[in-house]
């Protein structure tokens, strides 16, 4: 059986989540490996969410937020950008493949981009194989 | 490792849930044992407590609210914790209905000293939610087999509002009986409240029980205790004759985990019932 990765998506309510909706309503095809959790803003994402997701067996984590400057709360994603950049570096230095974590700015009108990013990211995770480093073995 | 293992809870089933107060955050749960031998082994006296145990959430030490004279079940009155510390066990329990199964570990700790109370007049003073083990004691003493062992019984019970009084049906029954004097008070009444208004310490002073051959059993929030004790000293009660139940964070309940250590006592295994005289020997660390 081919490897079907589990990917956690955390999407901002105003842009990426709406973008995902748009991708759906315009019937764009993209892999079903992504499970999306909606948050009100990308700056609401606690880095521990990401560590925890990897521990609970996510093979990849994709974060979606509004484009910088477009945040519904004006500056949320500007904070998030710095914070998630640090998260990325920490994951990298701890030895996790850097490709398993990705942040993308996807606006509400970019249904196409959403589908593209998910397709591309899923392919990338597939090539990386199952994530075993952080995953808690039972 | 099941045999004689004090850390393994016995299974019980919720047979009745009673919503006690207007704010719906205090409920009385009635449990029946799933194993007959557990029920036989669960011999307790008023004032003891047990650990309510829900796998995945944890354990919570709760005073037993039923009296051993009520055979076939045990009752616990549980407040949903969570204003400051999220209470996992109490929240999970509150979300359960009749038929839910949980674990029970006990009985733990020492009871109210029944032998010491015998042949004496008893004044029971309770405030708010801390009335649970007092209710157990009162029901125990009022039982026909036991009533003759005790002298006069006076109950002074207060809550903030009429809606926050626990065990309303039983209170009404007690008020009808003539072998117990029941004084119920609320800090502030509402439109329908016809009873007494006023704080517990003031009511105690008004009722003024005689200290002669009398033991006061007091349980309540710290602020009530703080103002009630001087009243009893004024009335002439000695420290040996004032009993209370101490609260401390507990985990094991059997004097092993070290958490409830106050001075050379473990509140769980050496208490939780202490006389004021015993408490004064302990360092003020609770």
């Amino acid at each position, binding site marked *: 059986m081919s490897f079907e990765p589990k990917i956690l998506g955390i999407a901002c309510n105003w842009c990426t989540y709406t973008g995902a909706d748009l991708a759906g309503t315009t019937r764009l095809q993209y892999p079903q490996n992504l499970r999306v959790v909606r948050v009100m803003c990308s700056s609401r994402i606690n880095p521990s969410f990401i560590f925890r997701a990897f521990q609970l067996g996510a093979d990849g984590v994709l974060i979606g937020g509004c484009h910088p400057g477009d945040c519904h709360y004006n500056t949320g994603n500007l904070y998030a950008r710095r914070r998630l950049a640090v998260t990325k570096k920490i994951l990298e230095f701890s030895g996790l493949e850097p490709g398993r974590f990705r942040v993308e700015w996807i606006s509400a009108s970019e249904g196409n981009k959403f589908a593209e990013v998910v397709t591309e990211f899923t392919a990338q995770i597939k090539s990386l194989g199952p994530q075993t480093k952080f995953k808690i073995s*039972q | *490792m099941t045999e004689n293992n004090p850390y393994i809870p016995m299974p019980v089933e919720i047979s009745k849930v009673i919503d006690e107060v207007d704010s719906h955050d205090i409920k009385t749960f009635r449990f029946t044992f799933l194993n007959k031998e557990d029920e036989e082994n669960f011999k307790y006296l008023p004032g003891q407590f047990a650990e309510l145990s829900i796998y995945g959430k944890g354990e919570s030490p709760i005073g037993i609210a039923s009296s051993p004279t009520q055979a076939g079940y045990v009752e616990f009155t549980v407040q949903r914790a969570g204003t400051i510390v999220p209470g996992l066990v109490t929240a999970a329990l509150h979300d359960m209905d009749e038929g839910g199964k949980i674990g029970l570990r006990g009985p733990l700790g020492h009871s109210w000293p029944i032998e010491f109370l015998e042949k004496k007049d008893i004044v029971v003073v309770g405030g708010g939610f801390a009335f649970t083990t007092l209710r157990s004691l009162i029901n125990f003493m009022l039982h026909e087999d036991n009533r003759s062992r005790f002298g006069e019984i006076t109950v002074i019970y207060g809550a903030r509002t009429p809606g926050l009084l626990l065990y309303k049906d039983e209170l009404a029954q007690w008020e009808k009986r003539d072998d117990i004097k029941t004084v119920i008070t609320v800090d502030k009444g509402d439109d329908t409240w016809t009873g007494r208004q006023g704080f517990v310490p003031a009511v105690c002073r008004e009722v003024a029980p005689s200290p002669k051959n009398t033991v006061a059993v007091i349980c309540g929030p710290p602020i009530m205790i703080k103002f009630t004790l001087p009243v009893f000293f004024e009335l002439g009660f000695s420290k040996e004759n004032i009993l209370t139940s101490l609260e401390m964070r507990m985990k094991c309940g059997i004097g092993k985990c*070290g958490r409830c250590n106050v001075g050379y006592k473990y509140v769980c295994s050496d208490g939780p019932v202490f006389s004021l005289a015993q408490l004064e020997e302990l360092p003020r660390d609770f």
Partner: protein
Amino acid sequence: MLKKTTIDKLPELAAALMEKGTLVAPVKEDAGFNFREITDAKQVDLIFHNTIISPKSAFFPQVEDFVRYQTGKSILEAAPVELNLKPTFLFGVRPCDVKSFQIMDIHFSGTGVVDPYWQKRREATTIFGFAFDMNEAADAAEFYHTLGIGAADPEGSDIFMVRKDDILMLKVITPKGEKLMTGLSFLTDASADEIKYFDDYITKGYDYKTCYTCVDTEAIAREFEAIFDNADFWTKISDACLSCGVCTFVCPTCYCFDICDETLFSQGTRRRVWDACMFTDFTLEASGHNPRTKVYQRLRQKVCHKYSYHIRKYGVISCVGCGRCTRYCPVNIDIFSIVEEAVKAKWYKRL
């Protein structure tokens, strides 16, 4: 019965014990020595002063599983975790640590409810005590002698060992030890000279490292009770304290634990885990009330519990002077100097 072997034959001895059951012995690790279950007979290393974590973990492991359960399923399906203990050999325990087992016995199995886990592990284990090397200077943090424990005190061990250069002498102390020793056929009998050396060594051990001697534990308990309310004293003592858990985790006589439900997906385990009275949330009640919010209150609890409450409750000081708490304290708080200051050296006689 005094037997002997040479240090280079240690792996052989280890292998023989491993055949009979589980061997727990000091192993050299990055940060220092620790007692570990031995998987390779060559791991056993007796060139150590003392371990970082005390050997209490052999009987009271940091994590002890009680019950496995599944969330969403009935409590009736939860299964207690069986211990399945093989005979265990706790090898190379220093005399002060051996003493700690006796103190912990009083708490776990000697009074009140018996802790089945402690008792079962204790029954399954044979203890090989090991004398301190008296040629080596004592660590400045240690004070076992103060508490009346000799550097070569065989009390409490089943078999006691003394090393003389490259010879390891083993003496049977208890019937349990004797039963084991008769099965170890490759050990040879010690000579008369060696027997004398062994006995002299044990005697000498009581005079080794003489700082203070304790004269009256009851009085110490009283002094601590008298000083309890002196917040200034305790504040000063705890000025440096970080309120971390190092001292309690490395201590051989600290027994506080927490019972935790640890769930992963639907599988969970109820287990007991070491806890420390130095942690802020140790006494945090569900009502939000916490009687020990300040660092000094927690340090006071720790010190008074060991040197006062424990004497009152069980009649012994809950300390064996192994010096671990002092040695590994990030800010070098010397527990014994607290005791000395609290009792104003009144109840200790400087020798």
